[in-house]
């Protein structure tokens, strides 16, 4: 298990912090730690929320004793094996990069001295591991964006970006799961839903899954809508 320390975060939570750099290897340990905590008998346990290099453990406040929870977690997390990747899935997400759905594609190309076609080629050529979910319901924090198409966020964030929009913000790429304000450059749109609230696992992917984007035409995009 990588080095970690546990701190009181609030009167109903503690946070496990890892000193290692962000990596898939670290994420495997964090998710394994999450499973162990969920299967343990910490009294008043509500939920554990994993992130890049931390894991928040939320407890019913009337059951909360920071010292007791920290001691318990220290012993639970002493010998953790990294989570196996056997349950990790690869998701192919169709994206339409047509100009009408990609208002900033040209800007990303210009910024990197590439053609629009090259940006699409690089974007669809990558494999993007899911590190964590957060920010918006069903939003996937993805790694692995090729340096060739990095692009700083827009100076003037949009007040509304439509669900399904695919963007680049700095060194990250991602998909807006719901309509929301946002500052990323929009380079395309997927017709598929990232959030299904009728499911017990409402997001389309989980940490350690990988995402690949597949270019589709505007006609194909429109077919999904029916």
């Amino acid at each position, binding site marked *: 298990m990588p080095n970690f320390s546990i*701190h*009181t*975060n*609030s*009167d*109903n*939570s503690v*946070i496990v912090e890892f000193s290692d750099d*962000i990596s898939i290897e670290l994420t495997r340990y964090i998710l394994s730690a*999450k499973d162990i905590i969920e299967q343990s008998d910490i009294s008043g346990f*509500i*939920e*554990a*929320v*994993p*992130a*890049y*290099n*931390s*894991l*928040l453990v*939320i407890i019913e*406040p*009337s059951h*909360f*004793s*920071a010292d007791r929870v920290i001691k318990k977690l220290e012993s639970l997390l002493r010998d953790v094996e990294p989570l196996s990747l056997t349950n990790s899935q690869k998701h192919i997400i169709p994206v339409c990069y047509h100009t009408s759905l990609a208002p900033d594609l040209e800007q990303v190309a210009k910024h990197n001295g590439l053609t629009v076609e090259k940006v699409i080629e690089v974007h669809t050529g990558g494999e993007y591991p899911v590190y*964590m*979910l*957060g*920010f*918006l*319901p*069903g*939003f996937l*924090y993805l790694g692995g964006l090729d340096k060739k198409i990095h692009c700083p966020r827009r100076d003037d964030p949009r007040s509304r970006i439509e669900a399904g929009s695919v963007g680049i913000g700095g060194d990250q790429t991602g998909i807006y*799961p*719901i*309509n*929301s304000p946002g500052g990323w450059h929009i380079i395309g749109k997927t017709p598929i839903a990232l*959030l299904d*609230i009728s499911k017990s*696992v*409402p*997001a389309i992917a989980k940490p350690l899954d990988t995402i690949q984007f597949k270019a589709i035409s505007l006609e194909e995009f429109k077919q999904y809508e029916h």
Partner: protein
Amino acid sequence: MNIRILKAGLQTTIQDLGRQKYREFGISASGALDQYSHQIANWLVGNDNNKPTLEVTHIGPTLQFEQDVSIGIAGAEFELFVNDRQVSMNTTLHMQQGDVLKFGKLKSGARAYVAFSGELKLPLTMNSASTNILANFGGFKGRALNDGDLINLNATVFKETRVTPNELLKEHHHNLQQNHIIVRVTQGREFEQLSQASRKSFLEENFTVSSDSNRMALKLEEQSLDLKDELSMTTTPIIPGTIQLPENGSPIITLADGQTTGGYPRIAQVISADLSLLGQLKPKFLVSFYEVSIGHAIKVLKEKEKYLNTILHSEVKSYTATQT
């Protein structure tokens, strides 16, 4: 029968105590911002404390009832009328078929809660009836109510007439009156990263609630805080009550609909016992922060819960007025 929404008000949503266990998917709890008042409203009509209520924000709705039903209203102090006759909050109100309930002027606080005897016919989403307006699910069609909406209610009439005990109101409302709320906080993970002067001003100054606030977050206007040194943060999980400090120096307090993760320094955390107070803050209200230890925060919460439970669940009869 239906509850007919004649006028929806500024932002009237269905809320209960929220949904847990979905933060790992980026889905926040939602639920009543002032859960204390939400529970009192439910008690007034003999409901379990998790039954959905209407959360009324700043400007209240006008409702009409197609059938007899008992209702309870608690929280922010509104003028209240039934068929243009003034009535009181914090007591069971027995509505008759065709009665119109109208919210008037808001006198203190920001949000009130309306509970109904019987069952609101609303589907549960992830085990909760709460509305997530941002993601457009839960509650009534995933949104705030509109004029003309009809909410289906399997109405019953509650046989008692209850009155909220004064002690409970005092406990919650004593600092609502002056439009200035003092909120107790514990230190956040990056509190020590604030400059010496900022640590002091955070705990001593008054902050003004910005008009840019909503159910996701309370934004504060003053840009008075800074960090000792530049700090590179990695996105971490946050929870309701987490106070973050973005680059502009104005603190942001996460609320029930807020993001599950954040990337700004976490300077403080509102204690669980005071989260309900945050729901009573309106733009232009003042808020100040008082630091307590985690141990004290837990003690305060246990006392508050015990108090609420004792009064609401034991000797109910002693607070029951004669039915008219």
